[in-house]
């Protein structure tokens, strides 16, 4: 039989045998030669004693339990301490098996000089990577700061201000007892444009920088100061009502000091509007309220300016000024859209040669909970100025298109056209064309059954953008009408330029056409013009049989007005 003991003694790895108490029972020559320990000294020694303290803790807390539970450990990186204190990096593997005299742990230790160094380098690299990650996120934070500041003045910019305001609103849930609440002071310069025009942009910029410094000086250290836009500045601070007034006075005093630009002494004054956010604000509402508070401060500033330069006014809850009313109206309108208080009424349109129903114009109404049924005049202008018109317009469009399909289903007249009004803002909205396409597709209404009415004013406010939108709408197959023709620019040029299908003659001319020769002439030329350009001529506001007859005589194609029907709910358009 071969002497396996010899093989074991000089195996390539160091080997140790341990009993179940972790005491060394045998060590091979490879191990003793390598570490300098003697076999005699090793026997009876607890194995963890050969490890430096760190490895010992690790071995005891992690390797040993793993060995006991799973029966093995593979390649733990340890150091073996020699009798002289020298350390020998090693990879430790072990198995726990049933030996002749009970359980036995067989330990193999491989010299791992290289491996340990390699792992240490890798680890150092990992730690460096983590540090550089930390640096990157710091750089990102710095970038975020840049994004929130105005380059010219170093003050917060609009996004930065909104963030600060949202933060203060969100934090202002508990009354601190001193009456201080987040307050916006909206500062607008009077006469900035004059400086810019007279002395050039560089001087204008310099002026803004001077003003920025002065506003910073006039504000308390706790304030956030922003250049909101152009020559508009905002001071945001937690102050009391009287505190806000003091800040406003200080701001106006400092602004009134002359500034010397290019040797010219310039006096710029300002107007200040104040609005305090004195209601606790829930986190999700902070964004909306922030905008609201800024708008109110802005409106207060305009009221101040209206009284003369160098003044301030504060917004008071319940102010009956038009600005505040408008804001209240808008808030109610938002909720009206959500709560389903809007209605669409339809005014029938007659095909004049045959007297048959040719189409309807969809007109929005607001079933106001306290004020009753409101006409568009009561709310459309405010909606148009605020941007709510997009939401409102989309709702009306969807409702009207779906109603057209409902009439079809109910056996209404074939090819009945539905006309819907578009505002200037809607026309400028890049989402308009997709919205129209989506709405038609979803309802399943052919595009040619929809007429979109656009006023002259809307067309001319941004003719290039309007042209693009109209061309795309035209491509969908939708019909386009010019509304209120004759009241605006009445220009042939745009009639030629825009791809319109209908001309709607304004009611003011129609009403006078049977009594006033001039109005009659205008209506006549509108009809001729329309026909000359291949457009359908539609008359609005027909109230008498005489008007209808006169329009027929002029060859107008369609007409609508009280003479035929007032705008009515969908159910009354087609009786039965």
């Amino acid at each position, binding site marked *: 039989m071969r002497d396996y003991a010899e093989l074991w003694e000089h195996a390539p790895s160091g080997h140790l045998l341990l009993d179940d108490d972790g005491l060394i029972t045998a060590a091979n020559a490879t191990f003793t030669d390598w570490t300098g320990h003697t076999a005699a000294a090793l026997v009876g020694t607890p194995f963890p004693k050969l490890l430096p303290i*760190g*490895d010992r803790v*690790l071995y005891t807390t992690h390797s040993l339990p*793993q060995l006991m*539970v799973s029966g093995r450990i593979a390649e733990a990186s340890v150091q073996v301490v020699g009798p002289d204190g020298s350390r020998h990096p090693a990879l430790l593997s072990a198995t726990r098996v*049933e030996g002749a005299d009970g359980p036995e742990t067989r330990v193999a230790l491989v010299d791992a000089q290289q491996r*340990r160094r390699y792992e240490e380098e890798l680890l150092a690299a990992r730690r460096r990577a983590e540090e550089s990650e930390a640096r990157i996120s710091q750089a990102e934070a710095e970038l975020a700061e840049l994004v929130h500041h105005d380059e010219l003045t170093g003050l917060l910019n609009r996004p930065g201000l909104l963030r600060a305001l949202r933060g203060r609103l969100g934090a202002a849930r508990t009354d601190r007892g001193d009456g201080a609440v987040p307050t916006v002071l909206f500062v607008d310069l009077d006469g900035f444009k004059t400086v810019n025009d007279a002395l050039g942009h560089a001087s204008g910029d310099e002026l803004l920088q001077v003003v920025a410094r002065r506003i910073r000086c006039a504000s308390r250290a706790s304030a956030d100061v922003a250049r909101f836009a152009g020559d508009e500045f905002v001071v945001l601070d937690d102050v009391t009502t009287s505190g806000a007034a003091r800040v406003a006075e200080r701001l106006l005093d400092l602004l009134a000091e002359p500034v010397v630009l290019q040797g010219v002494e310039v006096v710029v004054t300002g107007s200040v509007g104040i609005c305090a956010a004195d209601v606790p604000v829930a986190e999700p509402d902070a964004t909306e309220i922030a905008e609201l508070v800024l708008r109110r401060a802005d409106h207060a500033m305009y009221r101040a300016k209206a009284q003369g330069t160098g003044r301030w006014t504060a917004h008071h809850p319940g102010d009956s000024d038009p600005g505040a009313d408008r804001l209240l109206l808008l808030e109610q309108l938002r909720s009206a859209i959500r709560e389903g208080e809007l209605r669409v009424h339809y005014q029938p349109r007659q095909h004049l040669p045959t007297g048959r129903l040719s189409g309807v114009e969809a007109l929005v109404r607001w079933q106001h909970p306290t004020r009753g049924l409101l006409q568009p005049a009561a709310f459309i202008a405010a909606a148009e100025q605020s941007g709510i018109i997009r939401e409102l317009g989309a709702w009306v469009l969807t409702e009207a298109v779906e109603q057209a399909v409902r009439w079809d289903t109910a056996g209404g007249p074939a090819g009945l056209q539905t006309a819907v009004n578009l505002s200037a803002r809607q026309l400028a909205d890049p989402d308009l064309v997709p919205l129209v396409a989506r709405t038609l597709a979803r309802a399943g209404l052919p595009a040619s059954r929809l007429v979109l009415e656009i006023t002259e004013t809307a067309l001319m406010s941004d003719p290039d953008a309007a042209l693009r939108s109209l061309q795309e709408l035209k491509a969908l197959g939708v019909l386009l009408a010019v509304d209120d023709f004759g009241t605006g620019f009445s220009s042939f040029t745009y009639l030629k330029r825009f791809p319109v299908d209908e001309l709607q003659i304004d009611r003011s001319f129609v009403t006078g056409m049977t009594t006033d020769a001039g109005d009659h002439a205008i209506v006549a030329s509108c009809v001729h013009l329309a026909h000359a350009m291949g457009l359908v001529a539609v008359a609005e506001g027909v109230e008498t049989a005489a008007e209808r007859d006169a329009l027929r005589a002029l060859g107008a194609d369609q007409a609508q007005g009280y003479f035929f029907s007032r705008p009515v709910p969908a159910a009354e358009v087609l009786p039965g």
Partner: protein
Amino acid sequence: MDAAMRPTQVLPGPVAERLHVTSTGDPDGPVLLLAHGFGCDQGMWDGVLPHVSADHRVVRYDLMGYGRSDVSAWDPVRYSSLDAHAEDILAICAELDLHDVTLVAHSVSTMMALLAAVREPERFRQVFLVAASPYFLEDPADGYDGGFSAADMAEVAGALDSNYFTWAEAMAPVIMGTPDVPGNGARLTASFCRVDPDVARQLLVIMFTTDFRPLLPRVTTPTVIVQSRADALVPPSVGDHLRAHLTGSTLVQLEAVGHCPHISAPEETAAAIRAHLLPRR
């Protein structure tokens, strides 16, 4: 049915899933909640299990970052103190509606167990502390000997880093069938023994830097201190310190050697626990 052969059930529920909570034994028996220490997972209690499961409902779990716990739920900030781990114990008790619990904890889990018992004393009947230490360092101020010097700390961190890659590899969920483990005969131990290196590092750092001695007088739950001989981490004097500062505690000295007597001498450890179990309140 032999209690040891009763199926081990992995329990449903968000906390149970996060910490891989399992239950076995007599469903109507008093609750024995086993909390494992450093190194592996709830499998560390396998040897003790057959000796307690016949007449106990035995609930086990994996420490956050260990075994089959959901390491994605590990938040280094939240887990930067043992409080989060103690909250895990309480969350298990709450989700499983466990009451009058006998909590058996090993090593690092002993301090989590005491934190939990101080938070919700009404929840626990008794706490067993196996190989416990409230403070690993020596304190020259009052002569306390935790076994380690401050200088040893740096070495421990270094050793952890050296094994980072070994551990990172061990994270792969490898089931190790070990029919050759002594005494296990036909039993197949499916052990994960997974350790997330970052978690392990943090837990060891907490243990070596936190002095839990002020916690001891606040414990009102009856405690049993189970100490083994020649524990590389816990000198005998630590057992005496615990005995002196835990009101109404009992100190049990085992013949077993090393930091993990429940693995190396499960019968003796189980017998010591059984001998000191309190009756139902």
